[in-house]
């Protein structure tokens, strides 16, 4: 294992071997350089989602409005491409002010540096993007640390940590002023400490995890959906006498919730609702949609869009913020990724799910043979009490069976309700998108049996993903009831859970001893998929959108 045991030392100071150090630093650096190049020279200004609004938020902070208020904040009139003399002041409301401020506060630093050190708008417009670009590089480094922490060797950890950045959407978003990739980095760091806590039960790791979670919570509200299960699991796993358990359960919970609670309080104070955001005041019952959820899946390609938009939803309003073309502007211009890139991602995702499903089946087999046991006693936790001390095997197997039936039904409903996708291999994509409830149900059932710490870590991932995904589907349904069509079908909303999914896959790879060449084949497919997406589709799309 690459990680040297050093109890009490800060995780980032723990040394890696030379090859691990070289791999993690060089790959992180290369990814950061690529993303920075994209941010500076490839992605047109305004062509990542809502970039005008994100940029305006940064501009407001840099100019003294530390907490621009949603409802009052406006788009920055003098931003790129906006000609005040020709079009007058831009009085559009900046709906991005609904987001908590951490990303924008950090992005203000390069903005102010560019303002001080350069004399043109070119740098000022692009400087906030560097936070996203550097976040992607750091993400590789953090994921690598996490994968070596669970025991993967350097070659496999390098593949696992870089592979996720080869999803075109990630590289695209890392080249824009947007809070998504920065949030992903914060969640990855939180996941690193979460891993350390599950594996070693160091209470300090739980507090560090809570600290990074609270930072994520003041970056974007969808991180709150991650905070709840992470905190619940840490409390579930926390060992020790009752007083110790209670003290630290409260401490970790309070720390993790501090940021979101502050933002909720602010929203309540200003808007009368702790969850206030754009459109949240509308009553879904008075909206335009009337179908049930399953009818929605059949009437609209919701799952197909989610798949496509996770892979890459490129562009936004570059066309409309180019002064020379503004008169032709009719709204946002975006495109999905098609062709080889989509095919490659389909097969890689399917392979990933098969490996993880096999891992779960191995755990079922081990539970049947009663081969698994918890690691040496660290003291009693709720988890160990249920898994080890409750000798109710028939009940546990019954529960696992019931969960599996329920999860499978959930999966089948999604699969059958969704129409046949129009894209090549669309059924394989739909199959992958429908599998998580079944996998999560099996994982939940397995947690009633004694499991190794790394296995438990992997089992938590699909459960949290299902929680996260179900809330996203619910939000899509509510959006449909209001608007009459499914909105928010954004794959990027799933970013906070991605690091734990990568770690869970790493555990499966380690447990099944998946050959390196198998991972290499998937990795090469993603490399070529990304190249194909940019060279064949994204750059031509940008050229057509710009003067």
């Amino acid at each position, binding site marked *: 294992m690459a990680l040297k045991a050093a109890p009490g030392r800060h995780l980032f100071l723990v040394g890696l071997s030379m090859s691990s150090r070289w791999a993690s630093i060089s790959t992180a650096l*290369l990814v950061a350089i690529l993303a920075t190049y994209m941010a500076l020279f490839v992605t047109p200004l305004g062509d990542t989602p809502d970039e005008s609004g994100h940029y305006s938020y940064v501009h407001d902070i840099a100019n003294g409005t530390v907490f621009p208020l949603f409802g009052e904040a406006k788009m920055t009139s003098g931003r790129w491409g906006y000609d005040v003399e020709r079009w007058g002041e831009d009085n559009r409301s900046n709906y991005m002010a609904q987001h908590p401020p951490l990303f924008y506060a950090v992005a203000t630093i390069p903005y102010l540096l560019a303002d001080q050190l350069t004399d043109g708008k070119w740098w000022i417009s692009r400087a906030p993007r560097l936070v996203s670009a550097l976040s992607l590089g750091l993400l590789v480094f953090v994921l690598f640390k996490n994968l070596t922490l669970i025991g993967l060797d350097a070659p496999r950890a390098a593949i696992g940590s870089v592979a996720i950045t080869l999803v075109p959407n990630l590289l695209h978003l890392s080249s824009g002023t947007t809070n998504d990739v920065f949030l992903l980095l914060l969640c990855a760091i939180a996941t690193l400490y979460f891993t350390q806590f599950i594996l070693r039960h160091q209470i300090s790791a739980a507090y560090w995890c809570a600290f990074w979670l609270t930072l994520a919570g003041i970056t974007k509200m969808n991180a709150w959906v991650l905070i709840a299960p992470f905190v619940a699991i840490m409390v579930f796993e926390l060992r020790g006498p009752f007083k110790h358990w209670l003290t630290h359960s409260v401490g970790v919970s309070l720390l993790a919730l501090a940021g979101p609670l502050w933002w909720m309080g602010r929203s309540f104070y200003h808007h009368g609702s702790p969850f206030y955001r754009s459109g949240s005041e509308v009553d879904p019952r008075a909206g335009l949609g009337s179908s049930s959820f399953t009818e929605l899946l059949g009437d609209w390609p919701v799952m197909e869009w989610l798949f496509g938009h996770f892979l890459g939803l490129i562009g936004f309003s570059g066309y409309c913020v180019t002064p020379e073309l503004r008169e032709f502007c009719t709204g946002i211009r975006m495109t999905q990724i098609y062709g080889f890139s989509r095919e490659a991602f389909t097969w890689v995702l399917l392979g990933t799910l098969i490996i993880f499903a096999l891992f779960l089946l191995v755990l079922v087999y081990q539970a049947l043979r009663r081969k698994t046991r918890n690691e040496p006693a660290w003291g009693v936790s709720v988890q160990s009490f249920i898994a080890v001390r409750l000798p109710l095997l028939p009940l546990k197997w019954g529960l696992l069976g019931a969960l599996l039936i329920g999860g499978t039904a959930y999966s089948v409903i999604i699969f059958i309700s969704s129409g046949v996708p129009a894209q090549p291999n669309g059924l394989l994509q739909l199959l992958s998108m429908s599998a998580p409830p079944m996998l999560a149900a099996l994982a939940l059932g397995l947690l009633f049996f004694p499991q190794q710490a790394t296995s438990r870590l992997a089992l938590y991932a699909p459960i949290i993903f299902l929680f996260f995904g179900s809330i996203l589907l619910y939000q899509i349904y509510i959006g449909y009831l209001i608007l009459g069509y499914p909105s928010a079908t954004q794959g990027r909303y799933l970013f906070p859970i991605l690091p734990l999914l990568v770690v869970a896959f790493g555990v499966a790879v380690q447990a099944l001893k998946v050959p390196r060449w198998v991972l290499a084949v998937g990795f090469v497919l993603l490399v070529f998929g990304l190249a194909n997406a940019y*060279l064949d589709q994204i750059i031509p799309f940008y050229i057509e959108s710009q003067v």
Partner: protein
Amino acid sequence: MTGMARYWIVGLLAFAILLGWMALREAGQIQNYGQVNLGEKPHPVEAELSPKLSPGVSLRQPLEWDRLVGAPMARHYANQAVCLSVYMATHGGSARGGQLQMTLEQDEVVLGTSQLAFDQLQDLRFESFCFDDLTLGEVYGQPVDMVIQATQGVETAAPSVYFDRAVEGAERVTIGNVTHPSHGIVHRLQIKRDAAQAQFSAWFILAALALLGAVVLTTRTDD
């Protein structure tokens, strides 16, 4: 050299060959960045192949400017050289050894000529005929016909273009002397522009991904 080292050298070699193949494959696409599509991509409703374009077979079709691009956009690009891209069929790559020509004509006066070798054409792709001496401003709104015919080649190794059978308006094709009111050539209007920055970016991305792939694939196991 250990068996493992040989194994990885072969793997890296395969990666390099794949990259080389991809670079070759993408080179043409990157070269075409200088041709910018105007208007929406046509989506044929009832696609149908034209006769094979061997010498003696000609297709003539008036250009419907309003459908191809709006007047404000055309004004904006008035000084750019004009291209027309046509959706081609090479019959599984069998089109070889000939020359395809497109002319733009007004009142039987040839305004511009552009040629593509059969061997350059790719199956089921839009192929661009560019008129370097003709700007969009010079032809936009004028009653201009595009005429496609082969100047060299044989019928057994000739390409076709795709028609859309459900066309409306003026976009009807004349094959030889016979006009087909419901058939139109599937085509797009383009302009030529400097795309050096985008072309450099494409090669930069490919090089960066190659380097990243090589670093990841050569990462050694911890000692």
